[in-house]
């Protein structure tokens, strides 16, 4: 067993255990913190996949922005749903059954994948220069890139509009 495999197993175990805690933890704040641990495990796996850039982006976007936003939202809405309340709805068993069936189906497909040997990368790391050019290249990904930026602006404006305090007399 090589070092990379050991790191993979450790990171995978942390990610998976943290993910299970996210969906089962009775206290929502703890669920948010477990979510952060799970996302950090994914970042480690990104580094193992020779993509340090996306690992850093994962930390910057997911942990620093999304997870903190989620925790703030949990804090803001904590008053109505105390941690002693039931957290799993009445279809909990059915949901567990459904996700287990999904897992079985996915595993059945995954195990058919031939054990591909890793293709040699042109460079050791992801080529950031090529990535940057591809994102704004007419033959590359300029359309999705621009659409994504428009979508982000729309989400920004929409979120502010939706979350704004309702006008008086509403």
């Amino acid at each position, binding site marked *: 067993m090589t070092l990379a495999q050991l790191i993979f197993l450790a990171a995978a175990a942390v990610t998976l255990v943290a993910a299970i805690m996210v969906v089962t933890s009775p206290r929502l704040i703890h669920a948010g913190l477990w979510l952060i641990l799970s996302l950090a495990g994914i970042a480690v796996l990104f580094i193992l996949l020779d993509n340090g850039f996306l690992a*850093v982006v994962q930390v*910057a976007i997911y942990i*620093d922005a999304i997870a*903190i936003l989620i925790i703030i939202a949990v804090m803001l809405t904590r008053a109505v749903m105390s941690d002693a309340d039931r957290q799993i709805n009445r279809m909990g068993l059915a949901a567990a059954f459904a996700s287990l069936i999904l897992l079985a189906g996915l595993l059945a497909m995954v195990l058919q994948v031939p054990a591909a040997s890793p293709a040699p990368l042109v460079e050791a*790391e992801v080529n950031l220069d090529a990535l940057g050019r591809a994102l704004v290249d007419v033959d590359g990904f300029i359309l999705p890139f621009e659409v994504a930026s428009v979508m982000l602006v729309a989400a920004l404006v929409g979120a502010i509009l939706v979350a704004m305090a309702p006008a008086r007399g509403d």
Partner: protein
Amino acid sequence: MSDPFVTIGQFIKELLIGLGLEAALTAVLLRIVGAAVLGGLVGAAAILTIWAERKLLARIQDRIGPNRVGPYGLLQSFADVLKLITKEFLIPRGADRYVFIMAPLVVVAGVIGMWAVMPLAPGLVGTEINVGVLYVIAIGAIGTLGIMMAGLSSNNKYALLGAFRTVAQMLSYTVPMLLTLLIPVMLAGSMGMSTIVEAQSSAWFILLAPLAAIIFFISSLAELGRTPFDLQEAESEIVAGFHIEYSGMGFGMFMMAEFVHAFTISALFSVIFLGGWQGPGVEAFPLLGLFYFILKTALIYFVVIWLRGTFPRLRIDQMNAFNWKFITPLALVVFMVTAILDKLVVQADFNRTAVHLGSNAIIVLGTLFLLRAYAASQRRRKEVADRPQIQHSEAAGD
């Protein structure tokens, strides 16, 4: 002995291989040793900077400052650390035990992690990754998470308020900070910290982008939670903010994280805008680079302390308005102008420094003009608002 750091590394490596270790394991061990030494040194530097800060603040406020323990009070911080270590680490009733204990660790880890990519001297850098600037931003914001954890787990309303203030402040000031960090990245053509330093061999980026440097400095002060942005631990409003329930070394770690963070931001500023280890004679003696780096960092750190001793605290609405209505739009304008001009300079073969300096001067003039117009309109509005009020009070007097 052209490069002492490589020599030391080679020596330890050969020693370990001589002891019968595998080469791959040795490389990993060397990394761990290097990280421990760097982290330890940065932590130890905090003890010194605490002394310097207390002494300087005292002088600014016409006091003498620590002067009992050791010469010039130099050992005062050691005495404080000893005191904090021997004190009990209390966990309040109703606190979220594990989160409460983890919070100071996360804050310290986030700050010390930033040093992993800091180029200290030519060839002396923890690890050179091609997304260094992004890494610094990502790891630096982990501290926000730690502060949030402290606020949530303390079971104390002041701690919670402090944590909310911190998160609001840090999340919003990250926007101008990122925008201004992109300008040196554009000028150097790389996000790697060493490459940015090497790109400043002819002209420091503070000459090419003075406005970006100022905006970066202000927003990193806010990120630090230093005066005038120390709303998160405003004593007169929310007692001590997020670390109100911490005692003993838990409190000590928050304090240490704060001082190391201030020092780290100074180091980051000197790397990105003041050329890091660049200086005369660096090619011949790499160790001189370390000296230049520390000198520049100390200079910036002095300015941070100076501001702390000079400015009063902002109100929370002023803090937010300053960010969203002034700093962020300005950073956007500077960013766009720099991007366009830098492309034009490359094509038209102008003097790069002169063009960027000129464009920055024009932006400053434009900003001042706009601010003046805004102030004039505010004055006019205030006059209009005041006029009927005076008549009203006269009528009441009659």
